[in-house]
């Protein structure tokens, strides 16, 4: 005790020990954990190249998914005696191309949002780390690519099935409403009017998920 008016009661040995241990734990955290935390803080901040890389994966996934669908469609056209230069053949190939374009554009936009969401989730984790809260583990970039690839495969298959359905129904379904209006044209009405199996871009549920 020193000086007048100092009424502090001496802390117990236990309290003093706890204070010392707390300091040691802090120093240990600073030396062992902070470098790792700093790496994490840098890693979650996505750069241009992260977005470009993810877009590249999506592009090749869509192309790879649609290539066999295109091949199968042209082979089936031949098998059914529909030549590529006929109105039906041209329309079917163009319709598949439209599905591919839609799938590509949708996939790329979804990829941008997915990578950006990862960035924001990462930054939020850092904020929580700053408050001593546990950080959620990130899904990782691989998950984004896997999702885009699977989506492309599904869409390519769906597109092929729609085109096939259209060929079988050619000239037999009159159709009505928006679907017919969107598809109408001298040589397209029979092919694209597909009853319940609508092409992707006229499928309400699909467009809603774009």
């Amino acid at each position: 005790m020193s000086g007048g008016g100092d009424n502090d009661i001496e802390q117990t040995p236990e309290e003093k020990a706890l204070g010392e241990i707390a300091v040691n734990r802090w120093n240990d955290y600073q030396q062992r954990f902070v470098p790792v935390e700093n790496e994490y803080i840098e890693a979650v901040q996505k750069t241009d190249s992260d977005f470009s890389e993810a877009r590249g994966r999506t592009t090749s996934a869509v192309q790879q998914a649609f290539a066999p669908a295109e091949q199968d469609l042209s082979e089936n056209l031949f098998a059914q005696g529909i030549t590529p230069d006929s109105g039906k053949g041209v329309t079917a190939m163009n319709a598949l191309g439209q599905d591919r374009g839609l799938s590509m554009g949708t996939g790329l936009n979804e990829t941008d949002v997915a990578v950006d969401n990862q960035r924001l989730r990462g930054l939020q984790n850092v904020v929580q780390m700053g408050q001593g809260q546990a950080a959620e583990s990130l899904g990782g970039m691989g998950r984004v690519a896997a999702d885009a690839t699977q989506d492309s495969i599904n869409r390519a298959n769906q597109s092929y099935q729609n085109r096939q359905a259209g060929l079988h129904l050619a000239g037999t379904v009159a159709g009505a409403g928006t679907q017919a209006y969107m598809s109408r044209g001298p040589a397209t009405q029979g092919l694209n009017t597909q009853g319940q199996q609508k092409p992707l871009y006229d499928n309400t549920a699909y467009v809603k998920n774009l």
Partner: protein
Amino acid sequence: MSYTANLNTQTQGLAMASPFGGGNTFSPSYNPTTIETTETGDQSGSENIAKIHRAQWDDYIARFAPVEDMLFDRFNDSEFKQGAVDFADQTMTGAMNRSFDQTQRGLSRYGVTPTGDVAEANNRTWGLKTAAARAGSKNAMRTAIEDQEMGLMTGGLSTVAQQREDAWRG
């Protein structure tokens, strides 16, 4: 009549840059703030704890507050959403245009160059599908960014608000 790739001329000029990525990044420098332990004195326990509180605050300001600022900047960036919507439109338009070209190349491999009514009808459907796809992509991106904004307020930034409240309560 042959096909013409005139689905959209809006993006024929300079392509706009992606609003995603490319922002400011923050690199925390490793500067461990170790503390000298007070080993003597009646109040050494409290003094050591007080040192830790000060060091924690300094550490928070140096390494975590800049990251919070990044989230606030995104939330307050009124131009980001429109930029993302425009970029989604550009992406979709480009994808449809490229697929159109790719399809015509595929047909030409069979020696097919559609003319007349067939060419006209296909040009029309490409135009309609592209218009529908562009509108859909813009709506979807607008929704996605609005979801992000809501997520920021109910996610990371909400814990910042909680932290402030806790600090006031002591």
